[in-house]
C-alpha cells in the first residue's frame, strides 16, 4: 500500500452567528480511499461585507464549533465542539489530531456540522473552510518512487522561487504551475516547508497577505489537494518572532507545515505550485514570497 499526502478543503459556506448548526456533506475523490489524520479550520478574511471590519482571522475562527462524521455517519462527537479545543489556533501548521485515523472508501461522503456562536462578532457571518489532512491509499506501483537501494542522503534545503528568481504576487493574482525542478544530480525528499515574505517595511504592522492559497502538484501535475488551500494550512503559520515594535506575525516557523508522508521527487522532475491571492480592499500590497523546504538530497550510489 502506498500512502500519498492529501488535503481536502471543504467549503462550509457563510456561517451565521447564533443559528442552528449547518450540516455540510462533502464527497471525497473516487480514485482512492482516504485516511483522515488531522483537521484545521480557517476563514476568508475580508474588510467588511461578508466578514467584518476586523480582519483578524484567529478571533473569528475561535467562534466556530464543528464536528464531523465517518462514511457510515458515525460522528466524532455527540454535538458540535469549539474549534479552539480540538484545533488550537485553527490548527494551522499543526492540525488537530484525528487519532486513531478514520478511513473512508473512495467516493465516501464526509459530513461536517458547523456552528457560529457569535462570541467575537455577533452580527456578521464568516466564510469558513475546514481542511481535512491525511493520506490517499493506492496499491503498490502507483506513486511508488522512493529511495534507490544504494543511496546517500544529506541534509539540504531547496527554495522556491529558486536561486536567482523572484516570485511577486499581486494583491489579486493567480499564478499557475510555478515549477520547482530538482537538479539532475540528486533526488530530493520534501518533508516540509515554511512560507514567508520579505518586503514589508520595518515596523509596519501589517501582514504581507491575508488570503493567499496554494495548490501543490506532482511531476504529472496531479494535485495533492482538491482545491487551493490557504498557505498557513499547508506551510504553517508565521508568528514565532516579534518585539514590542514589530509585528509578531511577520516571521515564520511557528509551526512549520509538514508533508506526511514525504514527497520523494527524483532528479530532473518537478513539483508545481499554483498560487491564488484575493486581498482586494484590505489595504495590502504586492509581496515577494519565499518558501524554504526542509528535506534531504539523495545522491545515488
Amino acid at each position: 500500500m502506498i500512502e500519498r499526502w492529501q488535503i481536502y478543503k471543504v467549503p462550509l459556506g457563510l456561517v451565521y452567528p447564533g443559528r442552528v448548526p449547518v450540516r455540510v456533506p462533502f464527497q471525497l475523490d473516487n480514485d482512492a480511499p482516504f485516511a483522515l489524520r488531522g483537521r484545521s479550520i480557517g476563514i476568508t478574511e475580508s474588510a467588511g461585507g461578508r466578514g467584518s471590519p476586523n480582519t483578524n482571522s484567529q478571533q473569528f475562527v475561535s467562534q466556530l464549533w464543528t464536528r464531523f462524521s465517518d462514511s457510515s455517519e458515525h460522528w466524532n462527537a455527540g454535538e458540535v465542539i469549539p474549534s479552539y479545543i480540538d484545533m488550537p489556533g485553527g490548527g494551522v501548521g499543526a492540525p488537530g489530531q484525528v487519532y486513531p485515523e478514520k478511513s473512508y472508501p473512495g467516493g465516501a461522503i464526509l459530513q461536517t456540522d458547523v456552528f457560529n456562536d457569535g462570541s467575537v462578532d455577533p452580527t456578521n457571518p464568516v466564510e469558513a473552510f475546514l481542511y481535512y489532512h491525511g493520506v490517499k491509499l493506492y496499491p503498490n506501483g502507483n506513486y511508488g518512487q522512493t529511495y534507490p537501494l544504494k543511496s546517500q542522503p544529506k541534509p539540504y534545503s531547496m527554495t522556491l522561487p529558486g536561486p536567482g528568481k523572484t516570485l511577486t504576487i499581486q494583491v489579486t493574482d493567480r499564478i499557475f504551475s510555478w515549477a520547482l525542478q530538482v537538479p539532475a544530480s540528486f533526488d530530493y525528499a520534501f518533508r516540509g516547508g515554511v512560507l514567508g515574505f520579505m518586503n514589508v517595511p520595518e515596523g509596519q504592522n501589517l501582514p504581507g497577505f491575508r488570503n493567499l492559497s496554494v495548490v501543490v502538484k506532482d511531476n504529472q501535475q496531479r494535485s495533492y489537494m482538491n482545491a487551493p488551500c490557504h498557505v498557513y494550512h499547508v506551510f504553517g503559520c508565521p508568528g514565532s518572532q516579534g518585539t514590542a515594535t514589530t509585528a509578531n506575525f511577520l516571521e515564520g516557523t511557528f509551526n512549520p507545515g509538514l508533508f506526511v508522508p514525504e514527497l520523494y521527487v527524483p532528479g530532473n522532475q518537478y513539483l508545481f505550485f499554483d498560487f491564488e491571492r484575493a486581498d482586494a480592499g484590505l489595504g495590502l500590497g504586492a509581496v515577494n514570497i519565499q518558501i524554504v523546504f526542509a528535506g534531504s538530497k539523495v545522491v545515488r550510489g
Partner: protein
Amino acid sequence: MAYRPQRLVTIPEGWNAEPFIVPVVASDVNQGNAILAGLEYKSIPIPMDRDFDFWLLGFAYSCPQNIDSLGFRLRDSWGNYLSDDYCAAAFYALPAGVNPAIGGGYAPVVEPPLYCPHGSVLQLDVKNLLAVGGPAYVWGNMELRGFKVVPIGACAA
C-alpha cells in the same frame, strides 16, 4: 506504507555521545555591524573543535530584530552547500514555538545528521535579501546543536 529510511548515528563501543553546541554569535558576522540591504558576506568560517568529531542535529537562530529578510546558507566540511540558495532566516532557522519574550522552542532539524570531522570548518554565507536602499540588519545569534563522540569518561568541552 511509504518507505522512509531512518538513519541513526551509530556510536562505537567505548565511546559516548555528549551534547554540544557550536555558537555563531553576532560578532562573527561583519564584526557585529549591520548588514546593508543587498550586501552579502561569504565564507565566514565556523571552525570545529580539534578534539572530537561533531554531529550536527539542528540549528536555532534568534535575533532581536525583525529579520524576515536576512538570509543565510551553510556549507559542510567539504564545501557542499546545505541549500540551493540563501534561505530567509525567519523561514529556515527560527525555533518552532519560540516565545519572543522568553525564547525556547524546537530547533529546526538537520536530517540526516551532518558529520563534521574534528578540526574541519563549516562555512557560512549571509546576505541581506532586500533590494539596495532597504533596512539594514545585524546578524543575531545562531547555535549549531548536536553532539560530540567522545571516549567514555572524557568531557565534550
